[in-house]
């Protein structure tokens, strides 16, 4: 049984079909990539999974149970953590406080939460920054803070929304390392990414969408050679050659 399963997911914004009949399953322990050109509906799918947007049709199953219509905080408690593409640091709190606040998802005393936060910050290589205000972090740090916060809720599945966007090459390598480390902890990952270097090197399986509709699914190699994917990214003439 897949850990997370999307069944014929639909999301309409008025007359716009942002997500149109998308189905896929993420197996436990996988890094599952979700790719597509700008505006193809990747982030919308994330927002449907943790119910920031109510879905228009279809179903989302987590561990075989429907999570459709549950409040986002309930979904977090069930074990789905997420990061945001447009980072949302809790600006006027320190990095440690940011992570402590989310650690309360599983533990109840301040002491336990802070210990959890320290561990997670160490894991994400943010220990040196722990007493800085979140708003003072550069973008690389903010992206890592997003991951740290999601990890502190002890998720079984983590949704990473363009964690590598806007990073310089050395930060990019660190980000890839971090994502691999997260997987090695036994956490399943569903990742949206534009940077092909990231998505192609780490994904076990990739699902490609365009205009809200599935165009391909398979291993990195299969998807990279798929005519529909090449057409969506590079144009028709490249697809034929």
């Amino acid at each position: 049984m897949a850990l997370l399963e999307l069944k014929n997911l639909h999301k309409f914004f008025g007359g716009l079909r942002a997500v149109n009949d998308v189905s896929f399953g993420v197996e436990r322990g996988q890094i599952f990539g979700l790719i597509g050109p700008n505006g193809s509906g990747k982030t919308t799918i994330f927002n449907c999974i943790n119910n920031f947007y109510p879905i228009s049709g279809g179903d989302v199953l987590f561990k075989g149970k429907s999570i459709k219509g549950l409040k986002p905080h309930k979904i977090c408690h069930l074990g789905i953590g997420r990061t945001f593409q447009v980072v949302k640091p809790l600006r006027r709190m320190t990095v440690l406080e940011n992570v402590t606040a989310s650690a309360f998802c599983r533990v109840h005393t301040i002491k336990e939460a802070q210990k959890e936060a320290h561990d997670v910050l160490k894991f994400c290589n943010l220990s040196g920054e722990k007493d800085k205000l979140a708003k003072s972090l550069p973008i690389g740090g903010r992206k890592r803070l997003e991951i740290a916060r999601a990890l502190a809720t002890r998720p079984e599945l983590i949704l990473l929304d363009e964690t590598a966007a806007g990073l310089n090459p050395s930060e990019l390598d660190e980000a890839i390392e971090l994502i691999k480390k997260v997987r090695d902890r036994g956490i399943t990952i569903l990742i949206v990414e534009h940077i092909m270097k990231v998505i192609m090197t780490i994904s076990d399986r990739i699902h490609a969408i365009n205009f809200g509709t599935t165009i391909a699914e398979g291993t990195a190699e299969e998807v990279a050679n798929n005519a529909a994917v090449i057409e969506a990214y590079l144009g028709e003439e490249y697809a034929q050659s």
Partner: protein
Amino acid sequence: MRKKHLALIVLGIIFLVFPWIVHSHYYLHLIIIALMWVVIGSSWNLLAGYTGQVSFGHAMFFGTGAYTAGILASKLGMSPWWGMMFGGIVSMLIGLFVGWVCFRLRGPYFALATLAGGEIFRLIAVNWESLTEGMVGILIIQTFKSKLPYYYIALVLAVFCIYFIHLVMKSKWGYYFVSIREDQDAAESLGINTTLYKNVSLLISSFFTGMAGAFYMNYMAFIDPEVVYSLHYISIMAILVGIVGGVATIMGPAVGAFVMVGVQETFRSAFFGLAPQWISQGHALVFGLLVVFVIMFLANGIVGDWSKIKRNVFRMKASG
């Protein structure tokens, strides 16, 4: 840290012995009113400063607390001190309802909804004459002739309120409140039940504000809707106390309460009779200017920007 504790102890002793040193009823009255504002300002600050849900209608909790105590005393002959407890509880119930309605809205829309809420309560109190006596107001007999007991009751209430909020902010709830203020969507995705915790914050805030209202009833022995449900004397004043003292600081509203009551009284009494009487008409104007000044130069309030104030004062001394 030790220096801070010492300062608090000294401050505590000053407040404890104050009425034995200063015998003037007038100054004692001002301090009692300021202590009451410490409670209201701190409660407002918990909701608006820490949780980020700015209320423009705290008069509805203050007035409801006052009317609960007043009605219980005048119609049922209940002791006004029971009224203080019930004042808080009834305000909390009002808070529950207000939260249920208004927390569907965010940011400025929430603020506008509370503004409307405060006015609705004032109009109810004006028009529901069989219960509230309307514009005639409610008059009760004071329990004590001396101001001394009221002083200590207000002091205990203020200290308890500050300490309680201090404890809350150091707990898990505190982390949740600030997370909600900083980013409600992020907080929700971190597993925080934002609707629930916004309501928790509102309930604590409305409880203490209601108690302050009931205290006002007991102390002043007379209320009418235009005073206790007043937009500018209560709701706006609560905001000013918070902003001037320092939003999202524990001691900010306490400092703000004394500053604002001081400024208000200085102008109301035309500089204690030293200036021409027409100056007292200008107190609203001065409030406005004060807010502009604070927002421009001390955006975090007196307590929030204390280090900045100290630095500038020292610089002035050094250069002058």
